[in-house]
């Protein structure tokens, strides 16, 4: 439980930093240097009524990006938007997927990690009703039920991919996962099971291409 408390505190702090306009871009080096021109347009901010929390009133980076007409990627139990969290708010990937830096697998954040922020943030509408997707999240948390996310990237079981080595080498997550910060719904940007794609990168960078590096 200690970690949960820490996460809630961390979440609040982080949000404060984001509000101040500080972009914490650890793990997103690629994005910083490339700084792609946003492909979405910003509508006028909606009229605000009562029911907004002070946090909700100030949306850093303006209002949320609009959704494209067609969404790629599978439907998820909660319409979690990476384009808002990672794109607009610039929350570093490793804030939620923290094990990518120290483990073979990059974890899916625990429900309590989400609740660290969403205990406070409800993105309520003018009537004061929380955003329906956040409401779903809170229901999961209240029921004590894990969220059954649909898996997007799965490396075949005969290959073993050490996330921590790649993250520690300073590689951007986007290199394999695509520009997740622009994806309203995540889709597989790359077929991670195309070995030629792995080896090309290894070859370019002069990294080992020995089969037993990954296959055992």
């Amino acid at each position, binding site marked *: 439980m200690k970690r949960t408390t820490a996460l809630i505190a961390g979440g609040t702090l982080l949000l404060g930093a984001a509000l101040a306009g500080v972009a914490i871009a650890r793990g997103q080096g690629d994005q910083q240097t490339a700084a792609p021109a946003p492909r979405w347009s910003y509508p006028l901010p909606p009229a605000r009524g009562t029911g907004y929390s002070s946090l909700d009133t100030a949306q850093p980076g303006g209002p949320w990006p609009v959704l494209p007409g067609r969404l790629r990627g599978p439907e998820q139990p909660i319409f979690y938007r990476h384009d808002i969290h990672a794109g607009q708010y610039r929350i570093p990937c490793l804030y939620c997927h923290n094990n990518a830096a120290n483990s073979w697998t990059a*974890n899916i954040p*625990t429900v*309590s990690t989400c609740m660290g922020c969403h205990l406070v943030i409800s993105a309520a509408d003018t009537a004061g009703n929380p955003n329906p997707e956040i409401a779903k999240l809170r229901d999961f948390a209240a029921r004590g039920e*894990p*969220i059954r996310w*649909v*898996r997007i990237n799965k490396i075949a079981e005969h290959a073993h991919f*050490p996330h921590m080595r790649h993250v520690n080498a300073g590689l951007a997550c986007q290199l394999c996962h695509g520009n997740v910060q622009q994806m309203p719904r995540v889709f597989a940007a790359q077929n991670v099971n195309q070995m030629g794609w792995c080896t090309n990168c290894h070859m370019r960078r002069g990294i080992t291409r020995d089969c037993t590096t990954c296959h055992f």
Partner: protein
Amino acid sequence: MRRRRFLQVAGVAGAGVAAGCGTGTPDHLLPYLVPSDDLVPGIPTWYASTCRECPAGCGILVKAREGRAIKVEGNPHHPVNRGRLCARGQAALQGLYDPDRVTQPRKREGNVWKPITWDDAETEIATALGAAASAGADRVAFVTGAESGTLDRFYDVFLGAFRSTRRLRYEAFAFEPLREASRLTFGLATVPRYDFASARYVLSFGADFLETWLSPTEFGRGFASTHGYRDGRMAKFVAVEPRRGMTGFNADEWVAPKPGTEGMLALGIASSLMRQGKARVAGVDADRLRAILARFDPGTVAEATEVEEAVIERLAREFGDAQPSLAVAGGVAHQHRAATQTAVAVNLLNYIAGNVGRTVRFLSSSPWERVSRYADMRSLVAAMNEGGVDVALVHGTNPAFTLPATAGFVEAFAKVRLKVAFASHPDETAELADLVLPDHTPLEQWGDIEPIAGVRSLVQPVMMPVHDTKQTADVLLSVAQKAGKSVAPAGVATARDLLAAGRPERDFDRLLQAGGEFAEAAPRAVRLTTDFARLGWALPAFDGPADGLVLLAVPHVGLYDGRGANKGWLQELPDPTTKITWQTWVEVHPETATRLGVRSGDLVTVSAGERQVEAVVCVFPGVRRDVVAMPIGQGHTAYGRLARGRGASPLALFAADATDPSGALAFCQTRVTLTRTGGRRPLATTEGSPRQHDRGIARAVAFTAIAAGHAPEEEHEALTESERTAIDSAEASQRRRAELGRYGEDNPKWEMAIDLSRCTGCSACVAACYAENNIPVVGESQVVRSREMAWIRIERFYDGFAGGENDLPTGTDFEVRQIPMLCQQCANAPCEPVCPVYAAYHTPDGLNGQIYNRCVGTRYCANNCPYKVRYFNWWDYGHPASDEYAFPGTLSWLLNPDVTVRTKGVMEKCTFCVQRIRFAQNDARVRGATLRDGDVTPACAQTCPADAITFGDAHDPNSRVSRKKLDERGYHVFQQLNTKPGITYLRRVIRSGEA
């Protein structure tokens, strides 16, 4: 190359067809609700606990991944096993994930089992216990396995609350003769601590101390450290037993006395020792002993035991000269009607040679002294028969299987009003019960035991329970509460509370992390008593016809007393002596087999009077002509899909009332006759050939030669001049190519050294390999077709005797050569160039990589491998929908996520646990450290009780493996083939003859 080109073309044509395949249903990812403080997905967590697969009490570390236990290893700080573990300990996981476990509480209604809630079951027991307690004293019986420590005391308190003292700690192998002998000679009914490591001479009178005797892992370590050759020194080991088992295979010399005369031989040696003036006793004791031993002059003993007088004199001389020495006795197989006498004789021998207090030490207590006696079990049976027991609770033991049928346990148990089995598995006893309350397996339990006086070894759960099970102590606490009895201090509601009682939480956590408190008690001085003087020293009687063959019932190294029978790894583990798996065999001496007209594979009826069982003949040179041997452990009528209906138990031949003076059941009690049934059953053996045919696979050298500085190298198939030229030019061109690309960089070269002078053949490595590498269990029918999948096997050859190259030895003067055979990771590997798809290739760090997803199953590599260490998946062992699926039910939970589960049509083999190498390398890089020698250990080397396997980087001149490679005993198997193996074997040293 043409073959390779062809397959490339064929592969392109096939790719178009395969491209249409999708991945099927979407996968889901379920994150945790709350991150756990001690769990990082993808990184293992280790928990310290204690192995409960036998009463020895080895410390273990259990590797858990994402909350599931996937590997058991020894705890390096534990005083019993020092980081090592036997095959049974490795297989503890298969008990945890056994697909046949009892998954919920159930109640017998007529002939059917009905589910029952925990609450109802507890209420029912509480009511019955209350009624029994008010009906009188001792009307409740509680039978457990060997226990010591907090829960053991709690069980007694619980029973006391219901006015009963009928508490049994029943073990089939209770070593009663040892305890009784200690009482008779030294006045302490206990089992001493045997220190093999400091003994310079070991004399075993039938104690299988490397298999099942007391604490085999501990003894294996000690024995290997003293008997392994080092710097011109090694201890000598002489096995004195009618059957030469795995322990005897390690002996430098085998002396085979007539069954039942081992004790007499020990007395003969003792007597000779005194006569030679080598005794280390003086005064009254010496006079008294001299008077007793006078009867046992070498001549008389030689006649009775059929061991030559000169041998007796020589053994006495050697035993007395080596200081300190150690004699041991009391193996279950040789527990005959005079077993206590054997143990007393051996105690005297140790005493006379001055070993007591040195290699034989008495501590304040031993866990064995708490184990119930066979007589106690028989009186419980009598009490149940008389209706004196209303409620019987059975926990962690299976008397319905391990007691001989004639003991009448089954019938007597049926007369008990309420029979409750706290069982993890539906064993024979649970099948007879009214209520089966599924118990946690030891890997899910809390507990503590005291394997050595002063050592408190903790048991803790390593994962959430697999099923709806509950720890027995928790059930009892709840039952006591329902019955309104107070059995525990206030605030204690669970077994964990009992353990932690009176200790600050932080202290207890620290204790759990270490695995317990390891402060071994100091030994105490003992004096010779006079109690043994009234022993008659009569030789034991054997039932059955005088011309029959004495039957030895031998505890199985994997199955123990039968508790391992539903574990696939242990069933498929080749018996170290006969190499047979899955079956019940009867060992017959080659000459006896000729006389009886039987061959290996013939089915015979083994009969002792009216009682008979069926077994397969295995012609085996390690038994005397007048002896046959059968393994204990098979013949279950329940217990699960692998155990039920398999083989037969020699216990079915026993008379329950044949006991020795200590009251122990005589396991060696009857002479049997063998009759051919006419049928045959091919032996499911992994033995290729019992002889080496001059191939020089497992080599040995005489101690006298090597100690004197000349260890002649055996020459096998010397190279001709043209062969030499061809090899030289091939090597030159290889050297050029070995410099290409990454191969020329500064890589490690992983190599192994195996010291055959230490290897005991115990096969722990084989089980560890199964656990680490997701190796499927294939079953008897596939083993018969030589399709077993074990990546490491122990080969066993008979050598060093006069005879033809296909003959089995018939005398006792043969040597046994054992050698662990695994992929040699050849630097010039025959498997690699023949692979058309580069699935077998050489890695820059010196391994023979085997890439399963590349493999197309041509099997060229296996055909070209001279070591026969490649294994082909003939069936879909890894596919859940397949009939041959090797991991049914929860068994798939033990799969190591770091290792690919291979599919049908794929060749697989040892790669020195490459997943462990990569894990260590990645881990070191992330920490910013460099790998040190010893950071990577393959599963086999990790578990080896004898520490025979050394692994490391041969490019580092200071690594242990580099130094071992330079040993004068080093050789490569099939060196003449120029495969340049990465495994250096160190020749076994045999110290036969005069020492």
